[in-house]
């Protein structure tokens, strides 16, 4: 009896019907878009089904988008937060401030500071329900939205909204978002590729506490024996944006450049599209482009065309353009159709290096 009660308790709790909150899809989206300042802490589980090839260029993205991640969050505001990706063997923590980011990896004992970057590859913070939902719903139009039945997430009654992107370039079929109706904090996001019944990426709070975490939780005081290092750039996208002698086009494959933070404009790297439709353009040096081409060429289902070497991984497509000077090339990647990448590759084929 006791064992049965222990086993049944969580299911009984979830079976209690959730009352309807009186919010339209547009109101839910507006609440979500203004939720970046909602202070909270919690425990997030994310599941990714996108098998990104293990390549140095992509660093931790394969783990982020292709595996289950357990993440602890301390959020005091859009520019003061800490996100821990916890593993059985340790954890990788990101401490964020307006001026930059500190990354702590327990197993190696490394603490590395990088300045705030206008553009970077996705990291653990980008798969949090809050960050993911705000990105997915950014620029959504009323015709793309519909209401979803409310559901209980992490013990809270959450209101739901579904987005079906209308862009022809989109490879995402729909994104389902559930948020706390009082604060707008997204609690669960499921992103589906076209033709898929299981989410390509799902992220949800398993526990959430809507009180402000202590200031001490988001500050880092190095433990004994740890040297804090400084890195010029955070990843390959930031490095390319900082040093590559290119100016990214304003529009690519019919997609407009995505608005970033005005104080941190992008240069060589371009980010295009709106909502869940994202196209990334990164000029790569030969020493980065060549191994990536080789890695993609070894990936099952590789496409070798006049546009370059590409793979389609569910909703995510990746393409490296053919060799330019000394093996360099352009990396085009994003949640767009393979045809969109081919079109983008054709548009940047004649892009010339410049210094301005």
């Amino acid at each position, binding site marked *: 009896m*006791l064992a049965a009660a222990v086993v049944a308790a969580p299911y009984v709790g979830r079976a209690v019907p959730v009352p309807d909150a009186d919010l339209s899809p547009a109101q839910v989206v507006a609440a979500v878009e203004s939720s970046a300042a909602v202070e909270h802490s919690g425990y997030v589980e994310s599941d990714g089904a996108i098998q990104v090839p293990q390549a140095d260029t992509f660093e931790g993205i394969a783990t982020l988008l292709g595996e289950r991640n357990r993440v602890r969050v301390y959020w005091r505001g859009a520019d003061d937060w800490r996100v821990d990706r916890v593993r059985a063997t340790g954890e990788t923590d990101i401490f964020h401030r307006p001026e930059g980011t500190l990354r702590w990896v327990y197993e190696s004992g490394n603490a590395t500071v990088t300045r705030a970057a206008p553009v970077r590859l996705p990291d653990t913070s980008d798969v949090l329900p809050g960050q993911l939902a705000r990105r997915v719903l950014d620029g959504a139009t009323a015709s793309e939205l519909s209401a979803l039945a409310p559901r209980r997430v992490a013990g809270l009654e959450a209101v739901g909204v579904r987005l079906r992107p209308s862009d022809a370039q989109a490879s995402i079929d729909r994104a389902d978002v559930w948020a706390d109706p009082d604060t707008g904090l997204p609690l669960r996001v499921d992103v589906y590729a076209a033709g898929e019944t299981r989410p390509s990426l799902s992220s949800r709070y398993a526990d959430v506490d809507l009180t402000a975490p202590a200031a001490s939780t988001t500050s880092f005081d190095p433990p004994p024996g740890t040297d804090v290092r400084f890195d010029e750039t955070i990843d390959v996208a930031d490095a390319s944006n900082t040093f590559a002698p290119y100016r990214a086009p304003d529009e690519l494959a019919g997609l407009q450049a995505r608005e970033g933070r005005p104080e941190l404009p992008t240069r060589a790297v371009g980010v295009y599209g709106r909502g869940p439709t994202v196209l990334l353009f990164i000029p790569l040096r030969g020493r980065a482009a060549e191994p990536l081409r080789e890695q993609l060429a070894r990936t099952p289902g590789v496409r070798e065309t006049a546009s370059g070497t590409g793979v389609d991984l569910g909703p995510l497509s990746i393409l490296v353009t053919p060799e330019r000077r000394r093996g360099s090339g352009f990396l085009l990647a994003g949640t767009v159709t393979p045809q969109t990448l081919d079109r983008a590759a054709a548009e940047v084929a004649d892009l010339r290096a410049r210094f301005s």
Partner: protein
Amino acid sequence: MIRVELVKLLRRPRTWVTIAMLNALPTLVAVLLALTDIGPRPGTGPPFLSAVLTDGTLFPLAALAIVLPLFLPVAVAVIGGEAIAGEAQTGTLRYLLVRPVGRTRLIVAKMVSVVAFVLLAVVVVAVVGYVVGQLLLGDGDPSGAVASVSGTSLDSTQIAQRTLLALGYVTLSMLGVAALALLLSTFTDSAIGAALGTVAFLVASTVLLGLDAADALQPWLPTRYWLAFVDLFRDPILWRDVVRGVLLQGAYLLVFLGAAWANFTTKDVTS
């Protein structure tokens, strides 16, 4: 009766040989780490193994993490499986019960003896780990402070408290194994059968943990939260899995021990 069983446990060479073998692997790992200075890459290898290169204070935990997935549960399964079935196998169970010794008294004494073995094994692995860590591995910070998994500093008192909590947690996890072995031991006259049945259950649990299709079962699998003691060394402590692990092992303990008692007190003893 309890005293008799405890003395028997401590006087048996098998008990100490098993515990010595449990310590062999962590000691070998410490020697290899000391000689090569090569730790595992992030996300691979047992927890705390990279940290002990600079500070041996955490080696008791690394030693437990090394033996926890396989060696410790196998040892506990062997000792637990032998409790009743071993007496039956050697033909002494009938004589014990006609002596007369109450069945409840006998099984409680066996339970206490198995619990004592689990506690002894965990403590000895931790103590040997501490000694080996101090002798072979890094000296750490002179103040005694140790880096938590989250990159904060833990002073020696905090480390001692959390280590004790971790030892208690590992002991409880192994008591779940012992309870299952004891239950199976009441069903069979073969000690090895009871031990293998327990190990098979744990292997099945580990296989199901790696299977996405078994998602709904995973929170109830006995091995699901075994390594959650690592969460005690995060800052702030991540209690989520630790609490779930304690509740789960507590439930297994109650159910298996209750079933073992119910079966043993009502069965026909023929050997």
